[in-house]
Structure formats: C-alpha cells, structure tokens
C-alpha cells in the first residue's frame, strides 16, 4: 500500500502535535495516575499504621489482663477453698495500675455465686441461673482451662475456668473497663472499630457503619480493601488479634477523595481538551503562516509548469526562504530571456526558410514558361508577347514584393499573370473560374498562396486529357479562410495521393512535388500549425485541394 504523501503544512502540524500535545497529555495522565497511586499508598499506609498501632496496643493490654488472670488463677488453684481477696489483690493492682481503673475482677464458684468482686458487685449475666450455660459461662465451659476473651452485652471479659478433678471448681471473669479500650482506640483521623470475631462492636469512635444489632456492617465484616456501601466508598483494613477474640477495623471514608480525584481528572480532561483545541487551532494557523512561503513556492512552480512564466516570489518572512525566492525570480527571469531569444532565433530561421521555399517555384516555372514562350514566339508573336508581360509581372510580384503576407485581392491580381500564361499555353484546353467572396478580399494571406495549387492541377490534370477546368473558391468559415482549388482533370491514383500526403508531413521534402510541399510548409511555419492543407481526389475524377488558414485582417 502506498503511503499518502502529506503536505509540508500537514507535516509541520503533526510535528507540533507529536512533540507538544502528546507529551503534555502523557505527562498529565502519568501525573494523575501517580497522584492517585501515591494518595492510595499514603492513605493505605496511614490506615495500616493506625491499625497496627491500635492492634499492638490492644494486644499488649489484653496480654497484660490475660497474664493477670493466669497468675491469679494459679493462686486460686493453689489456695483452693481457703482463698482470700488479699491473696490476689496485689496482682490485680499491679497489673491495672497503669490504666487507672481496677476493673471488675469477679471470682465465682461453679454455680455462679460470687466469692469475690473487686467492684463489690457482679452483673447478672454471670450470676443469673439462666446464664450458667450462656454467654460468658458457655465460653468458660467450652474452653476448659484456657484463658479466653469474650464479648457479652458490651462487656469485654477475660475468663478462665479453674478445674479440679475434671470438674469446674472456680471461674474468673475479669470485666475490662471500657475506658481502657476506648483510650487505645484513641483519636484517630479515621473510623476505628474493635469487634469480636463475629463482628459485634465493642468499641468504636463512630456510631455509624453498624447494623441495628450493633454488629459491624456486612460489607465491612472481615474485609480488607475498598468497599462500596450505597453511595459511599470506604477503605477498610482489618487485623485479627490472635488468641484474644478481637478484631481491629480501621476504615477510611474515601468517598470525598474519590470525588476529588474524579473532579481533578475531569478538570484535567477539560483543561486538556481546551489546550488541545487551542493548540490544534494555533498550530493550524502558525503552521500555515510558517509554511506560507513554501506554499507560495509550490504554487509558483506549479504556475511555471503550466507555462505561465510571469510569476515572481515575494518572500520576506525568513532569510533562507528569501534567498530561495530571489534565486527563483532570477532563475525564472533568465529562463524567460532564454526562451525569448530562442523564439526570435526560431522566428528568424522560419523566415529564412519561408523565403527560400517561396523562391523555389522560380526555376521550374521559369523553365516551363520560357520553353512555352520560345514555342509561342514561332507561331503567335502576340501571345508570346503577352506571356512575356505576364511572366515579368509575376516575377516582379515575386521578387519585388518583400512583404510576407499580402491581401487576397493582391494575390488574386497577381495570380491573373499566371492564369494568363496558362491560358495562352493551353488555349482552349484550359478553363477556370474564380469565386472568392468579397468580404475576404482584404484579408491577409501568404504571398503566392494559390499559384502552387493551380500549378499542381495543371501538372496532374492533363494526363491523357484534352480539357481541364479549374475552380478557385475562397470564403470565410467560422473565422477561418478556406481556399479550394477543384479541377476535373485526370486526378491522381491512390498511391501517388498517399505519397504526396505522407510527404507533406516530412520535415524536409523528399519528393519532386515541390509546390504542395512548399506551400504546406510555409503556411505551417507562418501560422504555427493552425493552418492546414488537404488533398482529396480520385483517379479519373479530378483533384481537390483545400487550404485552411486563420483569418487575418490586412
């Protein structure tokens, strides 16, 4: 497939686009992507950092409480029935001092009766008979001898069952003060949830994002990543605190940021579209202006190609183009001079050729006529005299008349000399008629145009014939002069006719048919090909020669 050749102007425009618009677009896109990427990275990193911080803090707190429960459990197991509050208080105080709240440490017997409580009361969900296999108690029984964490009705409890002889002997329930966990959640710039592993919220810094039961919303449950809920988008990160039955969710509401990114992208797109339109327009204009001179040159060259040499380049925009323009003008001037000189030379050559052709009739004619006169002088002196007068008139016209073109009337007048000679020579065997319309009498035609036609008729017409009639006609047809020489003579056979026709178009005469060849050559040289000579005829029926030349008023 051939590649389309684009204009210089188009190329310049494309270069502008490619090297200005495209990089800007790419950079803008890359910047936006980088912005989103970095924003996402920082947001996620910040979220994770907070999450890790809280998780570690909570983990530390829970470890502390668990170790407290474990240590006291050992004492309870060791002391058995003789346990007293004084045995375990030091440990409780030691472990909780840093939080400023002792919390509710409850020691229970296996039937739910309270042996000891650091807050002097115990909530119904650990003392009520209906709870002995429910909630906290279920956890104690299900996790035999293991310290576990359970969230019940908004109370985060560390529990442990103390077994003796495979039977539950004592249960420790430590209810963590709510304040300790809320302070660990702290004041973060995002939503924080502390839930159990089933999603029941224990502590949070927001009232939202939970269902009517106080569970974290299904969309967020146990998920990390971008979450869409209705029209809001969140980024949520979740960590499990192993062995503590706790999960920490840190959630960013990124709806606003996403909106900003979308708006930013939209603004960039709008600005960029505007820039693009402006750039396209301005490159169009400036590339057109910059390539205006190139266009001028291309146009000038095209004009020259068409043949119009009268163009000149006026360039003033840049030095380089100015030089090219000036050189072009100079070159074209030189070319024009050259052409003119050539034309003159050509003209001169044609003139000389015409003159030479014109003069070619003389020897033949002279030979024939003089031969006739010699013959006439013996039989008819008067006729011989008339012939001599006619011949001298004809010669005078031929020699003296220096004009190339003469009026039809003048040529006809001088043709009469020739007709006189023929009339005398052939006497009654030769007859003629001249029918030239009056309105072309003053038109200009080449000197001695008609004489060779008559000469031709006589040359071939008498072959084996007694009589010959020649009709000369002249008229105007569609602005051209038509001359016809029509004889009723013997005519030419086809071979001869073709030979003459072919010879007419040769650059040099190769035959003995000077008359027609010369007249054809002359009119072609004089009228630059807008004249022509036709020969028609048939053996035994005569010959018709027609000359067409442009009309020229004398």
């Amino acid at each position, binding site marked *: 497939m051939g590649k389309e050749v684009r204009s210089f102007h188009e190329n310049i425009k494309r270069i502008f686009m490619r090297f200005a618009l495209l990089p800007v677009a790419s950079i803008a896109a890359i910047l936006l992507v980088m912005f989103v990427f970095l924003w996402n990275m920082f947001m996620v990193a910040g979220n994770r950092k907070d999450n890790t911080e809280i998780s570690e803090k909570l983990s530390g707190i829970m470890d502390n409480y668990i170790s407290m429960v474990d240590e006291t459990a050992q004492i309870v197991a060791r002391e058995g029935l003789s346990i007293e509050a004084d045995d375990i208080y030091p440990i409780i105080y030691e472990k909780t001092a840093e939080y400023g709240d002792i919390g509710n440490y409850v020691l229970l017997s296996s039937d739910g009766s309270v042996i000891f409580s650091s807050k002097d009361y115990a909530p119904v969900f650990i003392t009520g008979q209906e*709870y002995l296999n429910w909630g906290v108690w279920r956890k104690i029984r299900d996790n035999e001898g293991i310290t576990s964490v*359970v969230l019940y009705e908004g109370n985060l409890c560390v529990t442990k069952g103390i077994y003796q002889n495979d039977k539950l002997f004592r249960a420790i329930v430590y209810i963590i003060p709510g304040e300790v966990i809320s302070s660990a959640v702290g004041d973060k710039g995002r939503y924080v949830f502390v839930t159990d592993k*089933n999603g*029941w919220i224990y502590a949070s810094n927001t009232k939202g994002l939970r269902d*009517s039961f106080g569970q974290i919303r*299904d969309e967020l*449950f146990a998920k990390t990543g971008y979450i869409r809920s209705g029209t809001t988008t969140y980024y949520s990160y979740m960590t499990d605190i192993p062995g503590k039955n706790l999960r920490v969710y840190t959630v960013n509401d990124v709806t606003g940021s996403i909106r900003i990114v979308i708006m930013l992208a939209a603004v960039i797109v709008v600005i960029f579209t505007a820039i693009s339109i402006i750039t396209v327009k301005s490159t169009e204009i400036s590339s057109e202006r910059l390539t205006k001179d190139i266009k001028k040159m291309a146009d000038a060259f095209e004009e020259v190609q068409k043949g119009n040499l009268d163009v000149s380049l006026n360039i003033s925009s840049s030095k380089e183009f100015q030089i090219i323009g000036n050189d072009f003008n100079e070159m074209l001037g030189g070319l024009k001079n050259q052409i003119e000189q050539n034309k003159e030379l050509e003209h001169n050559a044609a003139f000389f050729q015409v003159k030479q052709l014109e003069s070619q009739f003389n020897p033949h004619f002279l030979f024939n006529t003089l031969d006739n006169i010699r013959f006439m002088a013996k039989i008819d002196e008067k006729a011989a005299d008339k012939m001599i007068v006619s011949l001298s008139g004809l010669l005078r016209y031929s020699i003296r008349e220096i004009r190339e073109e003469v009026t039809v009337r003048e040529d006809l007048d001088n043709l009469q000399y020739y007709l006189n000679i023929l009339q005398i020579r052939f006497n009654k065997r030769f007859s003629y008629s001249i029918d030239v319309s009056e309105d072309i009498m003053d038109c200009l035609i080449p000197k001695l145009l008609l004489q060779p036609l008559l000469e031709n008729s006589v040359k071939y017409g008498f072959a084996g014939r007694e009589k010959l009639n020649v009709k000369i006609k002249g008229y105007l047809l569609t602005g051209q002069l038509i001359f016809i020489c029509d004889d009723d003579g013997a005519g030419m056979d086809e071979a001869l006719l073709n030979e003459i026709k072919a010879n007419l178009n040769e650059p040099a005469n190769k035959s003995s048919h000077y008359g027609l060849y010369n007249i054809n050559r002359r009119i072609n040289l004089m009228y630059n090909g807008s004249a022509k000579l036709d020969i028609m005829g048939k053996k035994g029926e005569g010959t018709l020669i027609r000359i067409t030349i442009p009309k020229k008023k004398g």
Partner: protein
Amino acid sequence: MKRWGVTLIIAALAAGCLIGCKDKEEDTSSIVVVSPHPNGFIKPLIHEFENSTGIEVRMIECGTADAIDKVAEDDDVDIMWGGSVLTVGPFSDLFYQYETPNEKYFKDEYKASDIACTFFSDVPSVIIINNDMIGGKKIKGYADLLDSDLVGKIAFANPAKSSSSFEHLVNMLYAMGGGDPEKGWDYVGKFTKSLSGNLLDSSSMVYEGVANGRYAVGLTFEEAAVTMLKSDKHVSIIYMDEGVVSTPDGIYINKNSKKIDKCKKFVDFMTDRNTQIYIAQTLGRRSVRIDVEASGLVLPKNDINNITVDKKTVTENKDKWIAKFKDIYEEGIDG
C-alpha cells in the same frame, strides 16, 4: 501458537483453582436469616449463636408476610425465624422438613405436625394496659374493652398487616363466639366501633403506644408486653378471662437453602435447653420444652383460660376473615 496454548492452560488452571477455592470458601460463609422478631429479641440470641457455633449470621428484619415472600423469592435466604404457625402454615411447601434431636423434649402440642417447621416458642395473645392511663378501670378480658370510656384509647393493629393482630382477631372470634368463630363477629363489630378509627400499621406501634401512654390499652402478644414490663414501663399484662389463644411460632428452613447443615445447627441451637431457658427467663417467651420453666413475669400456663383453635379452619379462613374485619371496621367508621 505454542505460547497461546500454554497461556490457555495456565488460565484454565487458574480459573479451575479459583472456582475450586470458591467452593471451599462456602463453608465460612454466613447464613441469611429473615425474622419478624423484635430487634431486642434477636440480638442476644444471634450473638450467642455466633459465639458458640462460629457460624456467621446475616439478619434481615421484616414483617411475617414480607419474610414469607423473601423465602419464596430468594434462595439465598436460608431460614425464616419466627412467624406464627397459623400465618406461615399455608406456605408449608416452601420449607424443609427437619426434626431436631431436641424435639423429644418438646411438649406434645409442639411436636411437629404436618407442617415443615420446628416449633420455637409459644406466644399467647394478651392485653397490655398502661397502669397510669387506664383510670382505675378493671380490665379482665375482651368484654371490658367495650367500655365507653375507652373509645379511641385502644391500640390495635391492622390484622392484614400484623400477625399478632390477626391472632387477636382469631382469639376474639373463638373466645367471644364461645368456640364457634362465626358467632364472634358480633363482638368484633362492637369492638371496631370502640377503636374509633384507630387502626395501627404494625404490632410494635401497639405495645410501644401503650407503654408510652399514647393508648390506655392494647391488644398484643405476651413477649412484647413482658419486654415493656422489663424495661420498667408502667404496664400490666392481662390474660383474657374469655379465653387465651396461644399460637406457637416456628423456625422454618428454606427448602432451597444451600446450607442445610448450618440451618439445622441454627434450629438445634434455638431449641437447645440453654437457649430456651434464656428465652424464657430473660426474653419473656414461653418455651416449647418440658424441661424449661416460664419466666416469673408471666402467668403459669395452668392459671390461664387456654382455648384451642382449629388450625385448619383458621388457615383456610384467614383471607376471608381479614376481609370481613375490614368491611366491619369501615362500616363502623362510616356509621
């Protein structure tokens, strides 16, 4: 071409792995439960269920009629929890037949009948009165509601919208008709006049309306009244002298559920003795089990004038009765 082949194989393997993984994941996914139970009733039970079984539950709260529609339309809804047997009975086709091992401890009347359901609790219809607003009147049963001083002070929900209200309508028809529901319409006619154009849209508006003093008396179900009582509202529960109909509600497993095993665990948990004790003691529901006593806040079953209804008649006439009630009610307003 070779490369394409390799890529295709890898893609196929990856897809297969993903699908495979997804199948495995099914196990950790949650079950979806629709329930017309009050929020405060659902919460502790679901929390305990999740804690003890580790099965995650996704709750959808809605009315009984909606809940049935959801089960019918959505195979992802695994369980319908609640809704009286009278109301849900006609839709038995939607549910999966399951007999929990706990059923052997059930009272005889709660052992699964022909319906694909497990009885969960017993809910008698009761009258709730606001002690401060009743004005010293003694309310002992339906007859006392026709007192002219109570006109416009009675809270009753549209039986077309609330199943507890429909149960009250059934209760009225049987109790006031002396066992023949057709004879009870006389009373219903008088009762609707006492409503004086107040027909509420949901059952919660009844007990909350009475508890908040908007109405002096309301026709509701026992558990709601107990909940109000437990939250220190000045209300009393009246068991109608004329007779109390108690309709058990059930747990229904969607027969199209893809997690039948988890659903069975849910049913087992909810009918477990510990759960039933908790329900009876702290949530004011009557247990279906022999080995669980009722809460001290409710009257023992023996002290109540229990009447039974013909389940078949009720389920067959449900739409007719609701329409008839509507006609009578509108007549009452116009008259």
